[in-house]
């Protein structure tokens, strides 16, 4: 005679599942980490020869002082104009005398291209606020990104981040991101 096993009540299954659900809601995070990526220069080893051939016209200085005021090439400038000024400097579209030199180089997909020898020098004071620093970094990144997008649209008909890695490398060669940050030092009191 077969014995009938009584059915196990499953009414509390939902409660158990809810408990697990709530545990995972509390103990986990979903935030995607995003931000501005940078590569720091390696620590100089031993004696550094300061003999690098960077000329005055190739450098675009951006200084942010302790009161979050920004000096571009020595004069006060509004943050909203930084992107356009940086773009004009990097690309030097009219081959002007005071903007960076250009050296012809062979680039894949593009052939002979005059490449601007630009360097952006970013200096900040120890009392500059981090928020301001990020805004400046953001605008400089945006300048490079817009220039890269423009040339990518011209040549490939797509924005820079939709290109494949070879094409991106070619464009990076034309507009390399060169943001140099001065060695921190205490200047002008604190």
């Amino acid at each position: 005679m077969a014995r009938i096993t009584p059915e196990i009540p499953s009414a509390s299954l939902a409660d158990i599942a809810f408990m697990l659900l709530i545990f995972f809601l509390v103990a986990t995070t979903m935030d995607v980490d995003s931000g501005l990526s940078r590569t720091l220069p390696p620590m100089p080893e031993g004696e550094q020869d300061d003999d690098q051939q960077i000329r005055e016209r190739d450098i675009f200085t951006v200084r942010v002082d302790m009161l979050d005021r920004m000096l571009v090439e020595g004069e006060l400038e509004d943050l909203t104009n930084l992107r356009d000024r940086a773009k004009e400097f990097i690309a030097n579209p009219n081959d002007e005398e005071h903007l960076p030199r250009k050296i012809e180089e062979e680039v894949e997909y593009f052939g002979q291209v005059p490449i601007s020898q630009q360097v952006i020098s970013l200096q900040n004071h120890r009392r500059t606020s981090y928020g301001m620093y990020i805004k400046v970094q953001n605008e400089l990144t945006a300048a490079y990104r817009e220039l890269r997008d423009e040339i990518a649209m011209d040549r490939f008909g797509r924005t820079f981040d939709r290109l494949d890695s070879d094409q991106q490398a070619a464009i990076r060669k034309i507009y390399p991101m060169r943001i140099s940050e001065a060695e921190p030092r205490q200047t002008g009191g604190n």
Partner: protein
Amino acid sequence: MAKFQRKDKNKRPAISTAALPDIVFMLLFFFMVSTTMREVTVNVLQRLPSATEVNKLERKSLVSYIYIGQPRPAYQRLLGTEPRIQLNDQFATTDDIFAFIASEREARDESEIPFMTTSLKVDNEVRMGIVDDVKQALRRANALKINYSTLTTENIFN
């Protein structure tokens, strides 16, 4: 009596809740798959700046975090309101960063070390002095790939 019986017949059947556990399990699996465990309790205030030119950090397992900001109110009596560095679960100084990076490297596979990134989660109001010190310490530790953690926004001028 007949009256009552008729009324009983007309009563709507209760909605079956047999599918409820299935639905909840579905939600549970979604959250289990799409989230990651909280690993540290952040003891410093974090109001991250916003930026437009952000890129996402790939491969979270290769990211180490450095938090900088004012200590949370609970710690302010002890530590004051000057911005502090937090590594893992503890307050630290710039001298601890070298050891921190070394231990982070030890925990990863050797082939993955070149891809390790340090994410700086810094409060908006912090002065650059402490950030510069941390960056110098990272350079000394040869952890050169960094990411300034920001929120994403459409316009930074408002």
